[in-house]
């Protein structure tokens, strides 16, 4: 109970939404793909990672395979993979562009994807070609519902 109260207050401070089941978090100012990646756009730079829902379903992440800086990526296409103790899962870019930065910390600390999926666990930064590509992505509320619907499907 105390941990739940702490979580609620922390969520309020960080401006995140808490889904009461499993404490999965959704950050309000981000956009989301139906393959469970998030993207944060600042100017023409996009930062991309996987969501808390995704890391929760993956389990402990032991390895992250990422492209090199300079690689061209295309919206909806696979740009890397995450290995967890259960499986290897492809990760997809929500936007097109050129990779400008790669989170090298994930090489030594892949668990950052689990512990901090929206911050320290970011994966790549992309110089976006067409900012309008994010229009087709989900906002936080839609993504929350999408996750609920997906989990209830089976």
């Amino acid at each position, binding site marked *: 109970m105390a941990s739940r109260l702490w979580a609620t207050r922390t969520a309020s401070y960080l401006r995140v939404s808490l889904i009461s089941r499993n404490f999965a978090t959704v950050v309000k100012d981000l956009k989301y793909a*139906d393959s469970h990646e998030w993207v944060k756009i600042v100017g023409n730079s996009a930062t991309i990672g996987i969501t808390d829902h995704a890391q929760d379903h993956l*389990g402990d992440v*032991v390895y992250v395979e990422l492209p090199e800086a300079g690689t061209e990526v295309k919206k909806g296409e696979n740009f890397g993979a995450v*290995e967890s103790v*259960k*499986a290897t899962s*492809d990760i997809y870019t929500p936007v097109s562009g050129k990779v400008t930065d790669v989170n090298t910390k994930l090489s030594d600390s892949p668990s950052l994807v689990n512990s901090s999926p929206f911050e320290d666990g970011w994966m790549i930064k992309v110089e976006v070609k067409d900012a309008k590509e994010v229009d087709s992505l989900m906002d936080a509320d839609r993504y929350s519902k999408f996750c609920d619907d997906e989990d209830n499907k*089976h």
Partner: protein
Amino acid sequence: MRLPLMNLFKLNRMPILRQLHLEEMLMRTSSENWCIINDGTINPTIVMGISGKPQELLETESVLRDEIPVIRRMSGGGTVIVDQDTIFVTFICNKDTIPGLKPDPQRIIQWTGHLYETVFNGIGNFSVCENDYLLGERKFGGNALSITSKRWLQHTSFLWDYKKSNMSYLKLPQKAPNYRQGRSHLDFICRMKDYISRSGFIDETIRAAGSHFQLTPLHQKDGFLNQQYEHLRSRLLTIDELEEAAVYTPAVATRV
């Protein structure tokens, strides 16, 4: 209710790298379901998971001396050494193919576990433990899963038989399943041939798959084998990579 369709592809001694490339291509470019059974591979080959580091997993000097090929595959999981006495079974499915199956790694492994339970049908006390298939307390089948947005692939290497000398190329892994309990490789694995005939295992696996899917047999000569696909993740490690790993191998190795 009509069973979902699945192509059944029986191979005989296809080189494991070619099999892995075929699987990756089918996973990424096909929208059909596949069951691939490869009855052995030609030469002894070491296959590591996607994050495998030879300096941690292999006796690299012996591997280089004996010119054993080393592959890093697209899926995760552990390291195996395979040869003509390994039987490979792979399922590639669309996520919504199997009614009621959530495409979650744990549930996929459980589902395939039920399938193989019927194959063994009480022989050898078959069970699934931490992603491995066991007969009694010993592993005879290792699994690896790869998941994309719409499909999943599960491939298994079954130890029909093995040579003790081949196991000496592998180190005791730092990350091992709990049930292994520090056992050496030879105390941890068992031979499937001690429990079931080779043809019996393959026939019963096909029969078990046929109870879940409407199987369409394909042949090795069919044209799609010649399709080319770029960006394949599974690859052979170079001599330079293995030599570099040998340099970094600790002086005191932990043999399996």
